[in-house]
């Protein structure tokens, strides 16, 4: 997955703008900013750049990389209760560095002083009720309010937490515990497949410019079980989740406006990840790419020429933005021809940065057979 906060100078100004105008009942003025406006390409060279491949080491790389401008832990998943009632969920932790390096500490420095800001998004989609609820938290990395550590793996933003076990490479099962006013999840997550290194052995080049890249790995099939509460109701659920991990300091180029990202978990235990970067003229950028993952975790790279993506149906948000919520995906070399459709049309995240992120079903375009579930993310519309 692609980061939403490639260029940090702007989002934080934006952040301030919004926070200073907090709790505006009409949408904050900044929400009109396009994602591409925020994700400019004028990287702060003082941040460490993603220039070359490197071996990813675990559990260390599950933890934070504060020398890079931004980083996230992106969990999406589809779960159901014993009656087959289905839910989608998303929990994302973003780390954003406001400036590179460590500032000169001043004498008598306040504990509130920090360079790292954390943001988290939480959403649940109730498919039966066709209802999508989401929340957001933004906190500074100070007073122990938010942060990430390695052994054991722990990422937290107040009482929204993802915690691994001690003394093992990946620390499975991870405990995900997130509560908002209207909903909560308490999940246990464990992977039965190896880590998927995205891009070129974990280096994901987003545009040809040197340094416009990130380190990117996924856990494409996390067995998930636990409790999900929404409103007054509580459900014991099981299902599968997907973790995307990325960190870097700069990614999109000037003519890239956004992307469509698909994570697909097929019932036959194979997965597909593909992101299509879009240019200003609406075309797929040549840096778009993906991975096919088979039952044993063997991967195969997907290039733009391998795949054909066509929007079939659109949904219009309240703010006038239009998102394609039904797609045709053809992957001829793999004999795949699918219709990917949102399970709920409105899975729009009206958070600090606005985007569409939601659960989808995958249906064979010819037989109509349901092949799997997945998550779709669309930005820059």
């Amino acid at each position, binding site marked *: 997955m692609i980061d939403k906060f490639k260029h940090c100078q702007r989002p934080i*100004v934006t952040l301030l703008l919004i926070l*200073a105008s907090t709790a505006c009942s009409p949408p904050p003025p900044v929400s009109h900013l396009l994602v591409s406006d925020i994700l400019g390409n004028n990287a702060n060279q003082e941040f460490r750049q993603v220039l070359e491949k490197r071996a990813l080491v675990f559990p260390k790389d599950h933890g934070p990389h504060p020398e890079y401008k931004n980083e996230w832990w992106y969990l999406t998943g589809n779960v159901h209760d014993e009656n087959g009632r289905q839910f989608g969920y998303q929990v994302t932790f973003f780390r954003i560095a406001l400036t590179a390096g460590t500032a000169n500490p001043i004498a008598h*420095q306040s504990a509130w002083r920090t360079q790292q800001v954390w943001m988290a998004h939480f959403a649940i989609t109730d498919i039966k009720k066709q209802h999508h609820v989401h929340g957001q938290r933004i*906190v500074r990395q100070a*007073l122990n309010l938010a942060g990430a550590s390695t052994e054991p793996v722990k990422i937290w933003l107040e009482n929204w937490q993802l915690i691994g076990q001690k003394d093992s490479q990946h620390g499975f099962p991870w405990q995900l515990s997130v509560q908002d006013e209207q909903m909560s999840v308490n999940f246990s997550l464990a992977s039965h497949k190896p880590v998927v290194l995205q891009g070129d052995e974990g280096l994901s080049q987003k545009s040809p410019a040197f340094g416009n890249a990130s380190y990117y790995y996924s856990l494409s099939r996390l067995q998930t079980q636990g409790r999900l509460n929404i409103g007054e109701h509580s459900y014991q659920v099981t299902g599968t989740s997907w973790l995307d991990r990325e960190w870097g300091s700069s990614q999109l180029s000037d003519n890239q406006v956004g992307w469509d990202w698909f994570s697909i978990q097929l019932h036959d235990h194979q997965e597909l990840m593909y992101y299509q970067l879009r240019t200003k003229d609406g075309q797929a950028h040549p840096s778009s790419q993906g991975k096919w993952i088979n039952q044993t975790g063997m991967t195969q790279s997907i290039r733009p020429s391998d795949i054909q993506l066509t929007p079939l149906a659109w949904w219009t948000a309240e703010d006038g933005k239009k998102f394609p919520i039904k797609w045709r995906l053809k992957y001829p070399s793999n004999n795949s021809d699918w219709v990917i459709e949102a399970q709920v049309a409105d899975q729009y995240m009206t958070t600090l940065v606005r985007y569409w992120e939601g659960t989808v079903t995958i249906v064979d375009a010819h037989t109509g057979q349901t092949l799997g579930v997945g998550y779709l993310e669309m930005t820059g519309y």
Partner: protein
Amino acid sequence: MGIMLGVSIIVAVDLANSSAQRAFTLSLNTLTGHANHQLTAGPQGINESLYAQLRLELGLQNTRASVSDQVSVAGHTLTLLGIDAITGNSQRLQGFQMTTDNSSLLDFILSPNTAILSERTARMLKVMPGQSLTLNHRSKLHQIKVVGIFTSDNPAASVGLIFCDMASAQEILGRLGQLDHINLTLTPGQLAVLKTWLTKQDHPQLKLITSQQKNDAIKKMSKAFHTNLTAMSLLAVLVGALLIYNCMTFSVLQRRRTLGILRNLGVSKTEIFSLILFEALCLGVLGTLGGLLLGLLMGQGLLRLVLQTVNDLYFILHVSEYFISSWSLLKGAAVGLLVTVMAASIPAWEATHTQPIGVMQRALLEKSINSNLPKLFLMGLALIGLGLLLAKYPDVTLWQGFFSLSLLVLGFTLCVPQTVLWILSRLLLLTPYLTNMARLILRGITAGISRTGLAMAALALAIAVTIGVGIMVESFRVTVASWLDQTLSGDIYVSTAGRSSRRNNPGLPSSLVADIQQLPGIAAINTSRMLKVETQFGLIRLMAITSAHEPKGFNIKHSVTDFRRKFKQGKGILISEPMAYHQKIQLNDSIKIQTPSGEKPFIVLGIFYDYTSSQGLMAMHRNLYEQNWPDTQISVLSIYRQHDTEQATLLKAIRELASHHPMAIVVRSSKEIRQASLIIFDRTFTITQVLRLLAIAVAFMGILSALMALQMERKKEFATLRAIGMTQGELRFMIIAQSMLMGLLAGLMAIPLGMLMSNILIEVINVRSFGWSMQQIYPFSVMWQALLISTSAAGLAGIYPAIKSANAVIAPALREE
């Protein structure tokens, strides 16, 4: 004109009052946001880790940490407020928008000593984004860079606030690790969870209060002052109403003849009655509109004075927005129209219910009125008695006070004509010794008693208000001055500079205290530690004193036997009179005070006079203080010099010592403190003085319109006088002298009324609202000023009619009938 003035006073006072109240609420809201609860830990503050715990362990999202203090920039006192600009949910500064779209905003979070200001504050301080300002916090200077400017939906709310990131705020204010309080927006469920959680914390100082409680506590502080203002505005209503009544009565009385003619021509009673009322209504509407406009203008001026007083007395109120409350306007308009119509209906009724021919003859009217005067007089006396009785009733509320004041005024008005007649008839007994002119003057007044009586009553009332208020202020001033003399027993006082609304000032440097003790020429030094402590009555100032020298400083009102010994032994504390009054505390009661080791009871040994605050003050002996508070700091030194030492020399030596310390230290002689205190006192009562002036203006207008109407009506009489040989000069003299005599009489009558009024004002407003007892004095100056004002106003009012009548051509004026 009369209606206009009456309405304008009502509106102006009311608007100023309600604006100040709103300003106050707004200030509170800006600081506490929309939180419904607040966690405090007394003046010591809260450890910031508690804030993190609330969010981490309890997941309480709507929590906002608060650190703020007063700072000064270029002579302005402002509030520096720490905000967490990152944690979105915790901010509740609604409707704010940054106008500076500038990446330097990142500095706001990253760089120390940065701030954002509202557009208005920036304009006030004349700074632009990117510029720096020098900020003084407790005498320590900081260079602050302004990195952003914002506008707000409600610009008034953020005036005078300097917003800093929490980190910068803590660094500038020297509050590392500490918060003032935590504002929380809690659901009932969260509240229950938090309460349980708090009981498990070992933190006796920690207190959870509702925002309502918090705001009420602060509001209570300034309540007395607003009560005072409300009383003034009620007084304004009274004066305004009387003025309107006066005005309308004249306008109807004046046209009795015309009305009589109309009746003779066959116009029915009802028609005439409604004609008059309609006319009155039209006049009322016009006058009211004018009055509203004038009131709006005057209110703005008054508001400035009100805020000045609030700032002097209570706390810094930054908001200076002029809120035009429709309620105030409505009130003014209602009084204006209602009183106009009521005032017109009485003479209108009278005019329609007498024989048409009678209506045309004034003599008849005067006769009927004359016969009723003794009855009215008795009624008036009865009302005055009732009014006084009511005022003496214990626990009089403001409204009761106002009611008794109204009775007093009404009764007084009824008494005036009879009293005037009586005085004048006594004077007329001297007839043989009087010139014809003098007799003419006296007779002129008695003959037109229906009008002159009313005019004099109105004038007397207005003058009485000025006397009443004058006596109140003067009494208060004398009381405070003599109290200051007794309290400031030392020769020289040394204290730390700066005042803080919330927290405790640091003490004097101990090396300075030691150095001063070494100075030659000092007879004794008393020390005191001032701080604010949490009690069951809220945050109250505590003074811990030593008394090397027998303290004359306390002016004791009541005490238990042998209180001095008991006080020194630490058997209990002393409390101030307002505190005892408001909290209904008596000797030997105990007061619970939060000490660092939890809540402890302290016995009240005595009650002392104190006029420094209406919120209360407690005093305990230093030994008792140090047993309970681990604090050896000293806030104030009061130094007694030896008799053979020059005060100036000692003052210079101490100032020299103080200048070696970086912190600002104030060294003042008791004389300087006394002067400064009285200056603040006078400023506090500026508003009262202004209202007094307004009352005088009203009086002037009243007498002017009344006399003009009266004299105009006597055109024919004057023409006759001229015709039988009176010169123009004589006529002018007669009219002016008559006016002045009326003014003098009104002024004389106003004196007893004014005294009675001052009695009620002092009783109801000051004692009951502030809890201060006051010596009542009757300053001669107030009296003769009142006489002078009433006589000269009346004299001035006579000038125009005098010239007009004297210059009138005799023939047409005579021919009229």
